[in-house]
């Protein structure tokens, strides 16, 4: 077993708690001083940072919701001035506004360290060649993994997304030993290999780190068998940092959440803390971030915390693999999609009503999104051309607004809602495909 930062990865629980308290107090002081949103809430509750005397006192602090980030778009949660921010990432938000995350130089460096821990945890070393097929750009996936591979000293192939044939060729020619991408894209690569006459021994792949999408053990088995690798799960979210908040170790029974950087809690639907082992919503407080520290961020991901010691030696608790959410967020090709975003986009298009249904499917191992939209009672034109233009406009605006390619189908007025007490807005067929 190799570690990137052995001392901290295998720190005693007591020492870790001491470190967490110190970092939590520092974080609360910082946001009280620099983020009006937090200062006002703390003041209204009669709290000052010095009231945080133990880790349990975290329950005095307010939760942060995704809507709070939206209300303070774009930089309202930044705790430092723009001159200290060296990178900004964004993911799709619940409406037209993206969710923004800002990083200082130290944040980027710490993120790379955490990612290097994750890579080491997967057995990757400086002798490895890591093929990164997460998208590079505003999405945190590509660059997040990339900086970790460089910090570790392995060779990184910044392939980004798309052009599957070329990716497979490069993985073979460059002797990639590790693959990082979404689980559905891993299957897509595997299919391409088998359909194009590649043999298993054409590749040197040993391990894959897959995330940004919920996936179950059936899919893991499929990936491991078709690529002849060990497939590990990675967890992260833009608001908190990006990929690498938690990482599955080779024991494959949970993901270590790096508790020296993130303080995790599990809460019930009323926000009350639950003990380890009980399932609820994951709430994360960043305790080692400068650019955009967040207090008790509601991830809406359902999981539980595992406190039993792990055979890998790491002392940081694990979260169970995330399979469900408390809200209606969909993850399609690694992109977060909220029905409210679709509504927001459609409301701005003349000729259609913000009534819709999202049909998510998986074709050739790639997620597809079809948005069925209802036309207004008043037909926008009497020619096919008029309707095709409308369809094209909806498709373009949705693809831009969701940061995700999608198809649009025009439906007659009322066809999606007729006879329904509450319209079913989502039809996810992916579960049936694996």
């Amino acid at each position, binding site marked *: 077993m190799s570690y990137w930062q052995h001392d901290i990865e295998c720190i005693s629980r007591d020492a870790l708690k001491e470190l967490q308290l110190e970092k939590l107090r520092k974080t609360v002081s910082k946001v009280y001083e620099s983020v009006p949103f937090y200062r006002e809430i703390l003041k209204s509750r009669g709290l000052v940072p010095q009231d945080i005397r133990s880790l349990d006192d975290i329950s005095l602090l307010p939760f942060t919701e995704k809507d709070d980030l939206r209300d303070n778009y774009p930089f309202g949660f930044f705790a430092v001035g723009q001159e200290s921010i060296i990178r900004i990432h964004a993911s799709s938000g619940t409406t037209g506004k993206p969710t923004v995350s800002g990083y200082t130089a130290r944040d980027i460096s710490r993120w790379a360290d955490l990612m290097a821990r994750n890579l080491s945890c997967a057995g990757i070393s400086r002798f490895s060649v890591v093929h990164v097929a997460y998208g590079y750009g505003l999405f945190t996936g590509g660059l997040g993994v990339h900086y970790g591979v460089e910090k570790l000293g392995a060779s990184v192939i910044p392939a980004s997304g798309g052009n599957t044939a070329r990716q497979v060729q490069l993985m073979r020619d460059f002797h990639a030993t590790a693959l990082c991408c979404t689980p559905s894209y891993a299957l897509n690569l595997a299919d391409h290999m088998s359909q194009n006459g590649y043999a298993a021994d054409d590749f040197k792949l040993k391990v894959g780190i897959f995330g940004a999408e919920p996936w179950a053990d059936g899919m893991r088995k499929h990936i491991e068998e078709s690529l002849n690798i060990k497939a590990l799960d990675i967890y992260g979210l833009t608001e908190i940092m990006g990929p690498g908040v938690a990482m599955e170790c080779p024991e494959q029974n949970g993901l270590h959440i790096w508790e020296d950087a993130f303080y995790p809690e599990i809460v019930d639907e009323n926000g009350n803390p639950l003990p380890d082992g009980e399932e609820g919503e994951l709430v994360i407080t960043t305790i080692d971030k400068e650019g955009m520290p967040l207090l008790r961020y509601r991830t809406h991901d359902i999981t539980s915390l595992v406190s039993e010691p792990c055979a890998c030696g790491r002392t940081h608790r694990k979260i169970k693999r995330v399979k469900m959410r408390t809200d209606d967020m969909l993850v399609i090709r690694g992109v977060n999609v909220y029905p409210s975003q679709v509504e927001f986009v459609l409301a701005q298009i003349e000729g259609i009503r913000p009534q819709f249904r999202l049909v998510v499917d998986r074709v050739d191992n790639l997620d597809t999104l079809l948005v069925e939209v209802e036309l207004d009672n008043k037909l926008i034109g009497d*020619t096919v051309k008029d*309707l095709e233009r409308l369809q094209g406009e909806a498709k373009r605006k949705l693809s831009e607004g969701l940061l995700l390619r999608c198809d649009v189908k025009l439906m007659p007025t009322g066809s999606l809602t007729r006879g329904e007490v509450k319209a079913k807005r989502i039809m996810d067929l992916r579960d049936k495909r694996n």
Partner: protein
Amino acid sequence: MDVKQLSVFIENTPGSLVSLTRLLGDKGIDLISLSVADTASFGILRGIVEEPEKALDIVIEAGFTARLDTVIPIQVPDEPGSLSKVLELLGSNNIVIEYLYSFMRNGGGEAYIILRTKQMEEALKLFSEKGVHVLSAKEVYSL
């Protein structure tokens, strides 16, 4: 009086056209002309009816997506080449046709064409100058 055409959006699925035609039949609305434009996923039914405003209310009330547009019904001799003459006339005057369809023949020597263009005034003026017979609403409804 302008001749108004009712256009209704129909999904390209079995039974969607029949639900519209049944509705019109039940409400006593007679389709004087009928044409359907379609793509793989949807279609537009276009028809001339005697009381277009009433028909529009009825179909919208029933939950259809619909609209009314002014079209030009013309009468041409039912013989080879007569339609070409009209089309050439429009083309040489840069009038763009959105669509057209022929809708009925009375068994005599005339053919009837419904024509839609976004340059209505120019087309009507041209037809009047060149002696192309544009039918009035009254004439259309009596066919």
